[in-house]
């Protein structure tokens, strides 16, 4: 186990973003701002029926329109389906036989201007044979429901079952059993930059795709299969992205469509979603119905948990299955529960298909699970905090799902959050105010998941020192706005002993940067950071060896810090790293180059589901304080206190930004946000009708850092990007119950639901009064 101490020069300090000057002056070039010479504008023709056979597509008129340089349909493609999990791929970049949701891609145009491209789309004639659609996954399971994939004979995309222990026995041991249905709505990431890409081929037929991607190497792999093109013929470049949150993890149809258009027209092509298209077609958080059964003994020991989940997969396979497998794993989290059973159906419907969105299933299952804990606590006459503390996991514990917990600050998260908010004094007090708590556990260092045919979790980095002692750090991880480039630079600077200002970070270009699997599962700080640390160690070794020659000291007696290498204990006996670099390049004749690989040896793969374990787990407890207006049902969130075990805060300002940003999303999906689907149409495809929080809607947020110092993470750090929105809905739901005694089990908890519940409560209590 590494002994870190606390004497850091770079780690733990709130360095401002590397790219700060460019971002505040508008100099940052997003994909939206990029143009290539001769570039054409691409537009996609999408299905206007939720379920229909394509009888014919006539593109002749469109092709003739002046300014149009290419029109394509599925016939111009090899019709290879794609999916981040290849074995279940059933989405074609352009559909040929059938459309299965409003927005399904069927044709595309590249033209000199956006205006011409839109006019050309208008000229494409499509003949459909409408088919009966099905929109509700529980309806889709019924016999006789319209089938999206007739050849499979079912609307069940995947049925995932798992049992740990013996739930029957567990429930027999229970003194109380609660059974409830919880429901969540589809929630969309609302990235401020709509998704786009630019494809171009060079003279030798080599493709460069500039894409909004969280995982350039994964995208390259997917494209290589679908175009198809050998990997060596593809370069993926990721520019600064205006938000991703998981929705840009895998390939979207517009990526290969753009490539096909570019190839056919012989020119670079850009496709950019309009904001409406973004709302309609973006990957989003899957909606679920969760039937949860929890058994508990009268002393508060949780003995058994059973969940049946019906997940609306949407029309095509994407990440539904891994999220379902992840849900099962998460059910075994936070508490030590010996008997757990999981039964999950991933169901096709004629809605747009979902994907990863910050939390990866954890927000939905935690809403159900932590609401249930609150309900159980009430049943037992125990306080939520006491019930939780009695059952929580601890450092060193291995869950029944084989997730090995190393560092764990969950107990401290709960108690600190409770202390900071005056939990005991405020709980169960009369009035309209309430306080509620919820906790969570999440991957803190990535997960062993599918990549190609293997399950893995690795990253790599290269480092070159320039002649002046500054460093170029190259790694494949994607900074999607969360500031990972800055944190990786801090790790490199600390390990190497140079100043933060002397590092330049180059990331996410498959030609220039070494492989990293991508940004997801809170892995970049941990896995990416460890790879960078290894690269820095490699370079430091070379520097120390050279310095030992010059200073005539043993390598073991030398230290590197803040741009100097010196003998430990005698600072003045040393030399600056710039001097050393100059010496190496111009006198010794030796370039300084390092490499680092980190292949996570700790987590375990799951070859069946593709969703393995993590090398570290992050924990958090949130306490929400609310006030309910009983006339309108409106909930005002007064404050959310969020205690996070993140191992170590490498950059406190960046960590705070991640926590607060995630919580604003959490409050949004708890109280306001929902994609309004009616018969396959997304009715609120704009920022006025989709209620993302404004500056006047967000509440006070008090983040607390718990540093459990992970034994394996870089300088003890774990991930923190996703946790903060995971328990928010449950904390707020529990606070609402504390305030006014109504339990809302469906998200978002809008005022009309609260008012209806208050009315029902009033009638029920009047009714029972009358009976008396």
């Amino acid at each position, binding site marked *: 186990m590494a002994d870190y101490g606390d004497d850091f020069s770079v780690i733990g300090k709130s360095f401002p973003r590397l790219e700060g000057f460019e971002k505040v002056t508008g100099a940052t070039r997003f994909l939206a701002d990029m143009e290539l010479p001769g570039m054409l504008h691409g537009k996609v*023709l*999408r*299905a*206007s029926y939720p379920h229909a056979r394509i009888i014919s597509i006539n593109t002749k008129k469109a092709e003739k329109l002046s300014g149009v340089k290419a029109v394509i349909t599925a016939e111009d493609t090899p019709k290879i389906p794609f999916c981040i999990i290849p074995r279940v791929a059933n989405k074609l970049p352009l559909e040929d036989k059938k459309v299965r949701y*409003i*927005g399904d891609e069927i044709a595309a145009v590249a033209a000199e201007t*956006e*205006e011409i491209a*839109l006019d050309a*789309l*208008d000229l494409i004639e499509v003949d459909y044979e409408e088919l009966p659609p099905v929109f509700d996954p529980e309806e889709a399971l019924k016999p006789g429901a319209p089938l999206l994939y007739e050849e499979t004979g079912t609307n069940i995309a995947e049925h995932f079952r798992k049992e740990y222990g013996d739930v029957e026995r567990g429930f027999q041991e229970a003194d109380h059993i609660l059974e409830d249905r919880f429901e969540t709505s589809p929630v969309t990431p609302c990235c401020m930059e709509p998704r786009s890409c630019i494809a171009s081929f060079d003279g030798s037929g080599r493709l460069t795709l500039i894409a909004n991607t969280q995982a350039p190497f994964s995208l390259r792999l997917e494209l290589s299969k679908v175009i198809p093109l050998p990997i060596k013929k593809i370069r993926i470049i990721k520019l600064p992205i205006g938000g991703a949150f998981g929705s840009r993890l895998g390939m979207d149809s517009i990526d290969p469509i753009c490539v096909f258009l570019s190839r056919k027209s012989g020119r670079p092509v850009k496709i950019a979603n*309009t904001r*409406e*298209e973004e709302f*309609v077609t973006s990957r989003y958080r899957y909606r679920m119905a969760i039937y949860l059964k929890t058994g508990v003994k009268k002393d508060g020991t949780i003995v058994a948990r059973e969940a049946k989940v019906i997940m609306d997969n949407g029309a095509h396979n994407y990440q539904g299955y891994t999220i379902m497998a992840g849900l099962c794993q998460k059910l075994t989290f936070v508490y030590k529960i010996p008997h757990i059973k999981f039964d999950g159906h991933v169901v096709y419907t004629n809605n747009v298909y979902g994907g990863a969105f910050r939390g990866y299933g954890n927000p939905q299952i935690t809403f159900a699970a932590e609401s249930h804990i609150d309900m159980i606590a009430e049943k037992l006459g125990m306080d939520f905090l006491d019930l939780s503390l009695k059952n929580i996991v601890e450092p060193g514990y291995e869950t029944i799902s084989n997730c090995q917990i190393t560092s764990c600050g969950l107990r401290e998260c709960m108690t600190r959050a409770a202390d900071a908010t005056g939990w005991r004094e405020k709980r169960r007090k009369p009035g309209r105010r309430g306080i509620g708590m919820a906790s969570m556990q999440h991957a803190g260092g990535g997960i062993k998941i599918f990549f190609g045919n293997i399950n893995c979790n690795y990253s790599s980095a290269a480092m070159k020192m320039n002649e002046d002692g500054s460093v170029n750090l190259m790694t494949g991880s994607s900074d999607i706005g969360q500031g990972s480039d800055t944190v990786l630079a801090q790790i490199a600077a600390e390990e190497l002993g140079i100043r933060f200002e002397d590092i330049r970070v180059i990331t996410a270009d498959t030609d220039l940067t070494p492989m990293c699997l991508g940004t997801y599962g809170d892995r970049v700080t941990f896995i990416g950071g460890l790879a960078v640390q290894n690269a820095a160690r490699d370079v430091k070794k070379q520097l120390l060896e050279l310095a030992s020659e010059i200073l005539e000291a043993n390598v073991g007696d030398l230290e590197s810090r803040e741009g100097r290498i010196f003998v430990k204990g005698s600072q003045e006996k040393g030399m600056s790293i710039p001097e050393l670099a100059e010496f190496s390049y111009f006198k010794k004749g030796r370039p300084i180059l390092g490499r680092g690989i980190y292949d996570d040896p700790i987590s375990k793969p799951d070859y069946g589901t593709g969703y393995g374990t993590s090398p570290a787990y992050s924990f958090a407890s949130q306490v929400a304080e609310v006030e309910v207006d009983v*006339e*309108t*049902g*409106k909930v005002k969130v007064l404050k959310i206190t969020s205690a996070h075990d993140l191992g170590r805060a490498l950059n406190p300002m960046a960590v705070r930004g991640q926590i607060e940003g995630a919580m604003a999303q959490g409050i949004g999906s708890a109280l*306001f946000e929902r994609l*309004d689907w009616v018969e396959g*149409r997304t*009715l*609120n*495809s704009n*920022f*006025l*009708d989709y*209620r993302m*929080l*404004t*500056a*006047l*809607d967000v509440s006070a947020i008090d983040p607390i850092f718990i540093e459990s110092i992970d034994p394996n993470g870089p300088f003890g750090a774990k991930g923190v990007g996703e946790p903060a929105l995971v328990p928010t809905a449950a904390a707020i739901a529990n606070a609402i119950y504390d305030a006014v005694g109504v339990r809302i089990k469906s998200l978002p908890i*809008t*005022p*009309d639901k609260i*008012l*209806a519940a208050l009315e029902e409560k009033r009638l029920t209590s009047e009714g029972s009064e009358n009976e008396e």
Partner: protein
Amino acid sequence: MLNRFEYIRPHTVDEVLSHLGRLSKEAKILAGGTDLFIQIKKKRVSPRYLIDLMGIPELGQIEEKNGEVRIGSGVTLASLERSTLIKGRFGSLWKAVQVIGSPQIRNMGTIGGNLCVETRCKYMDFCHPWGKEISDKCFKRGGAICHVVKGGDRCHAVMAGDLAVVLIALNSKVVMRGQSEKMILLEDFYTGDGEGVTRVNSDELVTQVRIPSLPPHSGTSYLKYRWRESLDFPIVSAAARVLKNPDEGIGQEIRLVLGALASAPIRLKKTEDLLRGKMPRDHIIEEAVQEGMKEIPIVSCSGVPVSYIRKMAQTFAMKALREAYEASH
């Protein structure tokens, strides 16, 4: 992207009218642009000419004349927000302006534009061009059905603009100029239809809003209920103007207007009648509002349940009345 049009920059109202008379249905008036350009971008309208009102002096004045405050239709919402005259004389109007849209919208938008804001309905739009097959079926889009009122015979899109509600409560009038000059009560300005929302003809221009001074011993209120604290149109809005008899404390004249429930603001005349001559006790207000709401048809074009909107309409009608009564001395 906007459609292609010709752009005309007249300098006087007469010039505007001359263009309107000539171009009529092919032209649209450009005030702040915060509503018109959305109509154009969503392909609801495609005018061939845009007549820009910006900077026309006659439309940008706020003045007092003959016991009225007269506001030119081109006065921006931000100017109204900054006007000490408006703040001092019509607190409810001042309050209403502040909660419209966002700072940028208020800098750009005008009072005339807000009064003529288009009706809203979630079903009206869908991704152009491939989605127009879906959206073009409804009345507002030139089709023949209504998605909200199944089997309905007209468009039921909702008029949710803030200023109409508060200005009707203040008994305002609106001046229109075309071939001649007309002045009508603002409450008669709206047709009640989701299409063709106002009575402005295609060769006419709204030039001015006139608000009569508040009679002595009157109080006003404006309440906007929405779920987010910015950007959102209201789920329901309510405005009241109450004249109280100072000696007896009874309501002498009551005006109560609700917005965002239908294709035009609704005056609850029944409620007003029931309250006239009575002491404004809570249970009297409640009964009067309940009675007045009985026949009010409410449509939900936003996805919020109708039963909830109805409850909120009642709640906020009562609150608006109570606030207006309290404000009257």
